C-alpha cells in the first residue's frame, strides 16, 4: 500500500529564486525504511517538512504539484491531524523539547492525541523500555547529553506510534557512541513495528544496513531512488555528487575498478568480510 506519493512536486521558498525541490515524483510503501541522502542544500529537510505538513503550513512559499499522505493532500488535513500520523524528529534535539522533564516530554504528544491516563502510562512504559530512558525520566531534557537528548526526542515521537516516522539528521550532533544508540533504537523499530521510517542522514555506515531504499537528492532534484543494493550500483554518480559511501563499499568499489571484483557491493562490514574470505578462498 502506498502511504506517501509526490506528483510533480515543486516547492520554492518565498525569499528565494530557485526552487528548494523541483518536479519530485516518488512513491513510498507502508513499512518501508527509506534513507534520504544528499549534500547540504539538496532539499532533504524541505522534503521531510513537506511530508509532515510543516510545509506549507509553517512556511511561506510557492507550491506546485501534489503531496499525498495516505492518499490525501497534506493541505487538506485538519490542523494537527496529519501530525498524529506522521511523526517528525528534528536534527537539533534541544529545539524540539516542549516540556520540563523527560517524562513530560514523552507524554506531551500522547496528551495531544487525547489518550486516557492508563493508555498514556502503558505507552510510556513501552517507549521507555525501547529507548532505555528509565533513569532519566525526572531530569530536565535540556540538561542531558547530546545522545540522551536525541533519544528523548526520538522517544517522544515514537510514543505517539505514528504510521510514518521522519527523522531529519537525527545523529548529526552526536558522537559515534550516541549515534550507535540512536540507530539501535531505529533497528528495534524496524524489527518490532510496521512503521514507515524515513531517515535523512549524512553518515551512511549505520543507515545503509537498515534502509530498504535510498534516495539521492541533489540541488532540489531527485536523481536516484532505488533499493539499497541497486542504489550503490550507480557508484560513479554517487561519488560524483559528493556522497561518501561506507568504507567497506568503497574498498570493494576500488577492487571493482581495478577489475578484481565483479559481484554486488557488500552493505555491511560483516558482508564485506564474508566476501573477502570467499575471494581469498578462490584465489
Amino acid at each position, binding site marked *: 500500500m502506498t502511504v506517501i506519493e509526490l506528483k510533480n512536486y515543486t516547492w520554492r521558498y518565498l525569499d528565494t529564486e530557485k526552487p528548494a525541490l523541483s518536479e519530485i515524483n516518488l512513491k513510498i510503501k507502508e513499512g518501508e525504511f527509506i534513507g534520504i541522502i544528499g549534500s547540504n542544500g539538496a532539499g532533504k529537510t524541505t522534503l521531510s517538512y513537506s511530508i509532515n505538513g510543516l510545509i506549507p503550513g*509553517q512556511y511561506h512559499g510557492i507550491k506546485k504539484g501534489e503531496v499525498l499522505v495516505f492518499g490525501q493532500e497534506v493541505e487538506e488535513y485538519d490542523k*494537527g491531524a496529519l*501530525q498524529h500520523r506522521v511523526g517528525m524528529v528534528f536534527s537539533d534535539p534541544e*529545539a524540539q*523539547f516542549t516540556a520540563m522533564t523527560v517524562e513530560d516530554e514523552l507524554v506531551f504528544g500522547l496528551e495531544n492525541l487525547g489518550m*486516557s491516563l492508563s493508555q498514556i502510562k502503558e505507552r510510556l512504559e513501552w517507549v521507555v523500555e525501547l529507548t532505555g530512558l528509565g533513569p532519566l525520566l*525526572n531530569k*530536565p531534557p*535540556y540538561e542531558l547529553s547530546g545522545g540522551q537528548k536525541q533519544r528523548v526526542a526520538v522517544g517522544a515521537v515514537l510514543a505517539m506510534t505514528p504510521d510514518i516516522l521522519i527523522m531529519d539528521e537525527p545523529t548529526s550532533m552526536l558522537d559515534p557512541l550516541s549515534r550507535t544508540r540512536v540507530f539501535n533504537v531505529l533497528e528495534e523499530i524496524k524489527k518490532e513495528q510496521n512503521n514507515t521510517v524515513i531517515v535523512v542522514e549524512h553518515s551512511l555506515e549505520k543507515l545503509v544496513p537498515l534502509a530498504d531504499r535510498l534516495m539521492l537528492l541533489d540541488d532540489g532534484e531527485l536523481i536516484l531512488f532505488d533499493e539499497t543494493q541497486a542504489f550503490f550500483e550507480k557508484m560513479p554518480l554517487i561519488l560524483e555528487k559528493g556522497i561518501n559511501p561506507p568504507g567497506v563499499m568503497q574498498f570493494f568499489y576500488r577492487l571493482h575498478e581495478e577489475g578484481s571484483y565483479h559481484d554486488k557491493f557488500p552493505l555491511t562490514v560483516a558482508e564485506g568480510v564474508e566476501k573477502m574470505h570467499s575471494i581469498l578462498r578462490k584465489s
Partner: protein
Amino acid sequence: MNKTLLGYIPEESIIYQIHPFVKLYFLLVVSLFPLFITAPEWNALILVVTLGLMAASRVNMSTLKIYVPVAISMGTIIFLSYTIFGGTQPEYYVLFRIFGFPFYWERIRDAIVIYFRVLPMIATMVFFLSTSRERDVIVAMRSIRIPFVVTYVFAMALRSAGMVLEDFHIVRQAEQARGFDTKGKSLTYKLRKYIMYMIPLFALSLRRSEEFTNALVARGYAFTGEASKVKRADYILSSYTFHVYDAVLVGIISLIFISIIVLRYFFGAFGIEDSLLTIWFSPI
C-alpha cells in the same frame, strides 16, 4: 540531588512530601502577611520561620549568603530614601543631624518597618524558588484548573529565560573568539557595544521561536481547529497526590492569614504603636 529553580535539594528532603500547590499557596499567601503587619518584630518572626522552613527542607543555607549584599543595598536605599531624601517634616522629632541634614525618628522608624516588611517577602520567594522545580510550578497551577495554554506559556517563559542566558554566553564566546571583548573597557564603551551582543541574540531568539513552533506542530499540538478541542489527560498531575496533610497545611496558612487580618483590623494588633521598636527606642 534534585535541581530546583535556585539550586539543588537532596532527594530525601521532606519538601518533596508536600504537594506543589501548598508551596505555591505558601508563597502567595505568606508573602502577603507583612502587608498587614507593621510591627517589625512580627515580620522578623516570619523571616525566622521561613528560614527555619528552608533549613528543614535541606536548602543549602550557605547559598543564602549571596542575598546578603542585596539585603544590605536594599536596606541602604530604603534608609536613604526615608531619611536624607525624605524631605523636611517640621512636626517630626529630630533624632540627630549630619552635615545639617535632620534625621527624624519617625522616618527612621518607617524605614525599619518597610525593610522588615520586604525581607520576609523576599525570603518566602527564595524559599519557593529554592524548593520548587519548573514542573512543580506547572503542577501547582494546573491543580487549581488554570488553563493548559496559560500554564504552558508560563512554563516556556521559565525555560526561555535559561535558553536566552545560554545563547548569550554562546554569542559572547563567539565574539570573543573573533577578537571582540569588552573586558576591562569602560562602562560607557560596554553599553555602546552591547548592541553587538543583542543583534545576534535577537536573531537566535527568532530562530528558536520558529523551531519551537515546528516542534509543537510536529507533536500534534494546535491552538485552533479540531486538534485543539482534544480533552487532555494531564498526565503530569497523576504523579502527585494531594494528601490530607497538604489540606491541613493549606488550612493552617489560611487560618493564620485570617487571624492576622482579624487581629489587625478588629483588635489593633501588629501596629507600630505597640511594637517593641516604639516601646524600646522611641524618644517621644
